[in-house]
């Protein structure tokens, strides 16, 4: 794999919270159009990796690049804005804005942050709602939607920023089993359309089906990284084998 061609590049990224080292030298590359899954035990630093990629958390040491943005060097909010335009994120707890309707949630940032034209943004937002199959919920408030519906609105909200990459952080972990498949369906469509995705997930079957590559993290390190068929059927590292033995 050629690291200069990669859309996203992490090299030896380290991060501690206080005295606790959480990332101990993470290196990974993601090509444009690739879907990469990150799996691993809880607390191994998966969410922290995602937050370092879009600059929500500053790294202590190492190199982070997304497209032309050298994230590890960024300090000001203004620099961050261009990065956030390129990298969107979807959270486990949806984090929709409860005082705004579904449609407004999707429209807010493109208008208020990117300064796009309202009429054009509304058209885009309605298209996205249709894409996640929630057209009839445009005027509902988040509190009136189920978890799965809220998460699909959150995905539409991320897409409205017209990002090059979307980071998904265990987006189905808080959902009822019956709504999980609607959300996974929406994500699968995005991957098939060629959007670059990094997915932290516990859905092993889904990871196997959609991703081109799976990374297994444990205690702040990427222990093993391989195409899903290889990693799931023939794990090399004993820690990977142990983890897969527990979850499969």
């Amino acid at each position, binding site marked *: 794999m050629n690291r200069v061609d990669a859309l996203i590049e992490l090299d030896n990224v380290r991060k501690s919270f206080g005295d606790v080292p959480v990332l101990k030298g993470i290196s990974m590359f993601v090509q444009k159009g690739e879907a990469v899954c990150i799996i691993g035990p809880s607390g191994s630093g998966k969410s922290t990796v995602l937050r370092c990629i*879009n600059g*929500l958390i500053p790294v202590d040491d190492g190199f982070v690049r997304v497209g032309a943005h050298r994230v590890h060097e960024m300090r000001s*909010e*203004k620099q*961050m*804005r261009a990065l*956030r*335009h390129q*990298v*969107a*994120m979807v*959270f486990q*707890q949806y*984090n*929709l*804005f*409860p*005082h705004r309707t579904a449609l407004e949630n999707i429209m*807010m*940032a493109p208008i*208020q*942050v*990117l300064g796009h034209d309202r009429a054009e943004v509304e058209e885009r937002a309605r298209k996205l709602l249709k894409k996640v199959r929630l057209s009839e919920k445009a005027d509902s408030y*988040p*509190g009136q939607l189920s978890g799965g519906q809220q998460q699909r609105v959150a995905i539409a*909200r991320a897409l409205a*920023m017209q990002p090059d990459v979307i980071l998904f952080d265990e987006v189905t972990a808080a959902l009822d089993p019956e709504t999980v498949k609607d959300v996974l369906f929406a994500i699968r469509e995005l991957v098939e359309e060629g959007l670059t995705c990094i997915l932290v997930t516990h859905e092993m079957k889904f990871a196997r089906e959609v991703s081109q590559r799976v990374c297994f993290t444990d205690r702040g390190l990427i222990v093993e990284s391989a195409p899903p068929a290889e990693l799931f059927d023939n794990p090399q590292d004993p820690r990977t084998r142990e983890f897969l033995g527990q979850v499969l």
Partner: protein
Amino acid sequence: MIAGSMLSYEGKKRAVLLLIALGVAVWIAVDAAAGGSAHWSRVLARLPLLLTGSASGWPINGGFVLNIMLSLASMALATALGTIMGLATLARFGPIRVPAFLLMNFLRNSPWLVLLFATLYFLPFEMHVFGTVIPFPPFVKAVIGLALPTAANFSEVIRGAVQSIHSGQWEAARSLGYGTGQIYRHVIMPQALRRMIPGWMNLYALLMIATALATVTGIQDVLTILNTLLAMENERVIVYFYLTILFLFIAYCYPIAAIARRWERAVKGESL
């Protein structure tokens, strides 16, 4: 199960309140029959004076209406000052945050009466600014003196409301490219505002009660008027006058507190 016991608690509370009201009514009736009605009629004759500061009820020279005006003016000032102070205590920039925090805690932990005396004696009788004279009559001093502790308490209400907004809202807004100021404006404040309202109303009820302290500034508020009145009345009637004033304050403040409590419950039930 929990809902059931809550309901019975609410029911019990209502029953107790009803019993107290009934007790007071019975006591007044019994007392009136035993000669108290003569005292009540003295109070009734003075009621316009107590309410408006003039014996015929017009024009308004003070009295309970002045207490209300004082509380409204003071609350307006406190809301403005408290908003500034509250936002300052949330600032990330230390030289703004730390002094604001110290000032807030100083004002919050000082007795209201002491702050009132302090403004009374420290503020000049008038101030000269670029040739114009700004007078500080006792009413203005009372407004300021009561606004200071109220502002400090309101800034704490703001801080609490802002900090009660889930950190996920900050993360989501940041990941959408919002800057700090924009996050406050578009995401945090609209949500925090709803949560501030009950605290703000409670604070207003407290402030209204505290306007009774303003009698020390010499303004013609309901207590000052009562004190002048009492010199002319016999001792037996005093109790009736005080009861009347007590009732005035309760009648004004209780509904405000009750509405605030109802709103508080509604806000608490709201999902994130």
